[in-house]
């Protein structure tokens, strides 16, 4: 179950700039009418569409739970997660100055592993469903070419978590470059963790750790 802290969201509509809001929610089909989707039209190639697709995949993964097993959940989540995030951008921002010291092959390897690690983490942690729901509260242009989509995740016990997604347009698709979970920046965490690890143990150790973690999720999750 996606337990408290690390989660993500979903939902709908509108153009891609300016404050466009509407509370659309992604919940299970059995959720009460008051909390279910307010029938928004999801416009393709909008920041909201990216988040909607991600949240829908996560809900599906949670509902599949142990019936699907880790591998089944991974198959649901991985394609969506791989396209929803801008991994080359995240990888370069995460490693900072060290990124430019890597060869193109190493850079490619790193953002590939990062993408797989993200998908594996989602598949491992979104593993059961108990009425949790995602909802997009609003979206906003933070800077030309950079959008914020502000959403919530409500646990079965009523605790509401905030997920603020920052997206930038790559080609014709809006992709996530950072997520704030209850005010905690994923990019800041990764940057602090990864740069210290690279400095103390080296790039190969960082990649090896991520690969071991992916293997651990596959082995340890039901």
């Amino acid at each position, binding site marked *: *179950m996606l*337990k*408290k*802290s*690390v989660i993500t969201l979903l939902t709908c509509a509108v153009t891609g700039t300016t404050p466009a809001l509407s509370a659309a929610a992604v919940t299970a089909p059995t959720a009460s009418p008051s909390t279910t989707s307010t029938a928004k039209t999801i416009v393709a190639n909008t920041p909201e569409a990216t988040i909607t697709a991600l949240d829908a995949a996560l809900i599906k993964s949670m509902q599949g739970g142990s019936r699907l097993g880790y591998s089944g959940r991974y198959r649901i989540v991985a394609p969506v997660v791989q396209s929803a995030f801008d991994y080359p*951008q995240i990888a*370069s*921002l995460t490693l*900072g100055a060290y990124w430019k010291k890597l060869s193109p092959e190493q850079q490619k390897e790193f953002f590939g592993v990062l993408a797989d690690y993200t998908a594996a*983490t989602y598949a491992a*942690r979104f593993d059961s469903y108990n009425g949790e729901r995602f909802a997009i509260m609003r979206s906003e242009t*933070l*800077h*030309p*070419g*950079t959008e*914020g989509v502000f959403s919530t995740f409500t646990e079965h*016990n*009523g*605790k*509401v978590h*905030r997920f*603020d997604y*920052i997206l*930038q*347009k*790559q*080609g014709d698709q809006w992709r996530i*470059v*950072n997520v*704030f979970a*209850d*005010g*905690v*920046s994923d*990019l*800041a*965490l990764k*940057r*602090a*963790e*990864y*740069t*210290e*690890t690279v400095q103390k143990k080296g790039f190969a150790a*960082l990649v090896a*750790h*991520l690969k071991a*973690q992916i293997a*651990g999720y596959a082995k340890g999750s039901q």
Partner: protein
Amino acid sequence: MMRSGVYLSGVMLALGMLTLPGCATVNGPQGAAETPADPLAAINRPMFHLNMGLYDYVLEPVATGYKTVTPDFVREGVSNVFANVDMPYIFINDFLQGRGQQGMEDLSRFLVNSVFGLGGLFNVANRLDLPNHENSLGVTLGVWGVPQGPYLVLPFYGPSSLRSLPGLAMTIFTGPAYYLTSAPAQYALTGMGIINKGYVEGPNIRMVQDAVNPYVFMRNAWEQHEQYLISGGAVSKNQLLEGLQLPPPGASTPDQAAQSHESKKGNP
């Protein structure tokens, strides 16, 4: 009796909480690294590893056994009761921060669950859409302008700061164990609280342990979340954009910015 109440509450605090209460960094991506923000790292790191070891070898096995021998509804009920007894600490701090609406919601949640939820056994407030907030005296002091002070990892308790230390005492006086007059009841309550904490917080602790650098992950997450709570959930635009590569004016996307940059390099 009162003294043993204090003692037991202290033990509960100590043993119960390898938790990850909320948190916050003021520094953002760059500042999160090490030094000036973590002057006590030489003490904090060993303490962090001690706490993780205690979780691995004591709390986690106990929580696993608890999960094995109890049905879901029992664990849910126990978890609800302990969440409910935490509410006075939360709504008192809501009001101390001048957050009246949040305080009324938390007070209502406490009353509804205590009365209609049979002492908190059932989470009735959830059906009334009364949200469940986090709060602490450390957050209150932050709202009042008290600086965080050095980051601390407390034995058994976990992430904290100099500013958060008075909150530990406050949790004792707002918790039920302090007011019990029966020592066996205090022991039972304390023990159950520890087991429940291990069960409830297990996923969070495992998330820390799964991190590439668990100590750095927890410190940064705690500090960032603490700041988030102090700001009342407000995250500024500057914070949201911090650390990103932003397209310059005229280029609406990072793609165009990169192309613009490349063409400038080619045509100085």
